[in-house]
């Protein structure tokens, strides 16, 4: 399972980082949130899905098999 951030939609609320700072980071400045891992570890999958459902701007997108 992979996760990505749609830079067009991200508004830097930082909610994803609050859910998991091992999966997401909010860089200095004004850029969108970044994903820190290419492939999610099994323990990170539920957190990524929670971040996707929580993101107010629907910028977090999880791809791959559930």
């Amino acid at each position: 399972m992979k996760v990505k951030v749609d830079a067009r939609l991200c508004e830097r609320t930082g909610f994803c980082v609050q859910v998991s700072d091992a999966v997401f980071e909010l860089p200095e400045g004004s850029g969108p949130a970044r994903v820190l891992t290419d492939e999610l570890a099994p323990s990170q999958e539920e957190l990524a899905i929670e971040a996707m459902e929580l993101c107010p701007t629907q910028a977090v997108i999880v791809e791959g098999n559930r």
Partner: protein
Amino acid sequence: MDALARDEPPVVAGAMNLTDHDEIAEVLKSSAFAQAGLPKGVESFLKNSLFALHGQEHFERRRLESKLFGYEALRGYRETALQPSIRRCLEVLEWDASGVAHTDLVPLTWKMLHQISATVVGLDGVESESQTARFIELVQAIGSAVVVDWSKGSADDLIAQGLAARRALEEEFFRPSLERRMGLIAEVTEGARPMEGLPRDLITLLASHRQDHWQDELILHESTLFLVASIQTTSQAFPQFVLQLLDWKAKNPDRVSALVDPRFLRAASYESLRLFEAAPARMRLCVEDIELKSTGRRIEAGTVLALWFSPANRDRDVFGDDADTFNPDREVSERPPWGLVFGGGAHMCIGKPLVTGTLGEPRSGEEPVYGTMTTMAQALMSLDVAVEGEPQLKDGTYYFEYASIPIRLKGDPTAAVQAAAGDGHEMRDAG
């Protein structure tokens, strides 16, 4: 009718007016600004709701409630609430021998939406025609009172009517629904019912995660927010969307088959939302001195701002030289295609996925879930909807909102809803 040509509401008098898209987007994201305006409506109806929270408390509440808008939840609402509701609304119309029915799009929209709204909140007993009519009557009265600052009438009268309606809603729908759910939660606690046996709705969620300082009033206020936000805003937006689609159809006779394609309708709904915001403006209060990065504008603490979404959503620098026109084929590369209509930042509308549906490419094994606007439009377009009278705007409010749009439908309502339930694949493939 021009959404931009409207009177200036008294509530914006003396405010700093912002109309630039990126400037408004920056204000919405910034912690230097707080909600302003709507003080009467918010205090009376939405106190301690998500709308009024900030910081960590807002994050925690939002984290809890976002469970209501995941993929499975959206699919469930669509299949068990929205589509059956559309079917019932269409089937009860009086269809003549040639398969034609006449109705009014505005009340029809409220009826089509009421069940998904009640389901998300967790209100039982909204099934029969009379229950539905009563539920809609109460939500409309409450909704008018929540946005009382934008009314042209007596604020005191509207709030009194809204509070009376909310008391009735509490007694007739909310309290029995809460008590039933408390019983179910008790059964889970006692091990007599699995956790998965609980309904997925706001009242159950809040009641099962209740914190010591939460009163029933908090759940009622949150339910009020969800009801008004989910049914009232889309009821204002959807008739406008249908009018835009019909205008586009007249100008594009060679592309009418697109009007039953959910992917096309989804993009078209975003375009309609961008162009037509019912609320005249959103109000914000600057709470610390700031210089906006987007424009360099300096704003002092204490300044009240009126954020004018309609001109901002037609900003040519953002949406192109044809930003004033309805173009479902528009490609917006660096901003959300719906503009600012859902607000911005951490306080962006939590129910947005109900309207937009799922975004991006679906995960393997999943179908896209289309939003309410797309699903309702697909059903009506399949029935060759046509306007057959002069649309009337609602009086007594600064909102750009229709009171009546007489329409004619033609075809088989059951087949139209079934086609929409199949997301139009059959029609698209055939076309």
